[in-house]
C-alpha cells in the first residue's frame, strides 16, 4: 500500500447506512487490534484487546466489512500533532469533501496489527435484562462515517433506552461488563467470509 485507499473515503453521492434497514443481511464488523495475539486460553477475545480505554466501550469503533477489508487493518494513524489537529476522525456530514491522508505523514503501515470479526446481528437491537433491577441494557450498531473512513461504525449501549453516559457509575459498570462479555464471546479471529454479504451500494448511495 503506497497511498491511502481512496475507496475508504466518503463520496458526495454517499448517504448513511441505516442498520434497521439491513437487519436481514448477514454483515460483519471488523475491529482492529494492536497485535495478532489477542485470544485468551479458552480461545475468546482477551479483555485487554477488546479496548484500550474504558471510554472506547461505550462507543465501540468498528468497520463494516466489505469495501473495508483485511488489507486495511494495517493502517495505523500516526500520533503526530498534524494528525491530532486534522479532521480525519470527525464525523462525515453534509456530504463534505475529504482530504486524502498521506502515507508516513498521517498514517503508516503496521503489519503487526490484528483484527477480529463481529456479526452485526449479534449487536444490533440486542437486549440483556438485569436480574433484580429489571434495567434493560441494549446495544445498537450505528453507522458513524468519519472524514477518512466511510465504513466506520459504532456499537453503542443504552440503559432503558437512554445513552449509558447519562447513567450512574454502577449502571455504566453493568453495561461495560455486558459489552466486554458479549465482545469476548462473539468476537472471532477466523470466520468463513463467504457466509456473509458485502452491502449493496443501494443502501449507501443517494
Amino acid at each position: 500500500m503506497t497511498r491511502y485507499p481512496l475507496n475508504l473515503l466518503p463520496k458526495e453521492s454517499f448517504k448513511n447506512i441505516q442498520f434497521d434497514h439491513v437487519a436481514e443481511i448477514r454483515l460483519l464488523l471488523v475491529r482492529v487490534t494492536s497485535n495478532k495475539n489477542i485470544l485468551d486460553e479458552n480461545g475468546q477475545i482477551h479483555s485487554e484487546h477488546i479496548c484500550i480505554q474504558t471510554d472506547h466501550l461505550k462507543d465501540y469503533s468498528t468497520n463494516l466489512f466489505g469495501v473495508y477489508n483485511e488489507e486495511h487493518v494495517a493502517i495505523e494513524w500516526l500520533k503526530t500533532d498534524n494528525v491530532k489537529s486534522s479532521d480525519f476522525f470527525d464525523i462525515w456530514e453534509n456530504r463534505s469533501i475529504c482530504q486524502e491522508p498521506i502515507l508516513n505523514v498521517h498514517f503508516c503501515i503496521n503489519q503487526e496489527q490484528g483484527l477480529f470479526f463481529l456479526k452485526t446481528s449479534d449487536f444490533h437491537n440486542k437486549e440483556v435484562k438485569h436480574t433484580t433491577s429489571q434495567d434493560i441494557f441494549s446495544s445498537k450498531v450505528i453507522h458513524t462515517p468519519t472524514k477518512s473512513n466511510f465504513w466506520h461504525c459504532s456499537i453503542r449501549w443504552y440503559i432503558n433506552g437512554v445513552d449509558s453516559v447519562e447513567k450512574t457509575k454502577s449502571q455504566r459498570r453493568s453495561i461495560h461488563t455486558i459489552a466486554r462479555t458479549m465482545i469476548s464471546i462473539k468476537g472471532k479471529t477466523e470466520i468463513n467470509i463467504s457466509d456473509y454479504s458485502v452491502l449493496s451500494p443501494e443502501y449507501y448511495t443517494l
Partner: protein
Amino acid sequence: MIAEVPTYQPTPPAQYFLAEIQNTQGKNLMYNSAFWGNNYPDDNVFIIRQANETIRKNIRLEKDITEISYRLFSEQFYENIKQEIFNFLNKHSFTKIVVEPTMDDSLLIKGFQGNIQFFLEIFPEQSNNWGYEAFINIVENGEIVLHQSGRIRQLSEYLNVK
C-alpha cells in the same frame, strides 16, 4: 482483656485443593486408606498427579489474582476480595478459569461449569462496606442468560440456580 485464640485457617489454595480431593471420583479420598498405602497402586499415583496439578493450578490462580490486584488496585482491594473469591471458586466445579485485568480498572475472572460460562468482574469501590462492586454474566449457548450485581457470595448463588 482476653486475647482471642487464633484458629487454624487453611490458605485459599489449600481449601481449594482439599475440596478437589474430596470431589475426586465422588468420594472423600482423604479418608481412603488405599490413598495413604505404602504401595501406591496406579490409581493412587494418578490421583496424586491430579492433586499436584490442582495445586499448581490454584497456586497460579492465586498468583494471578494477587498480582493483578496489587498492580492495578491495592493490597486492601485484595484483602477485601480474596476470601470471597476463593469461596466462590471452591463452591463450584469450574474449569478453564482465566484471570485478566481489564482496561476498565476491574479484575475479570471467567471460567466454565459444564456448558455454562461465567464472567465475574470486580471493581474497587469505596462507597460500600465491603470495598468492591461485583457483576456476573452467565453465558449459555453463546448468549448472556443472566446479568446480576452485588457481593460475590450472593452472585455465587446464581450459578446454583442455572
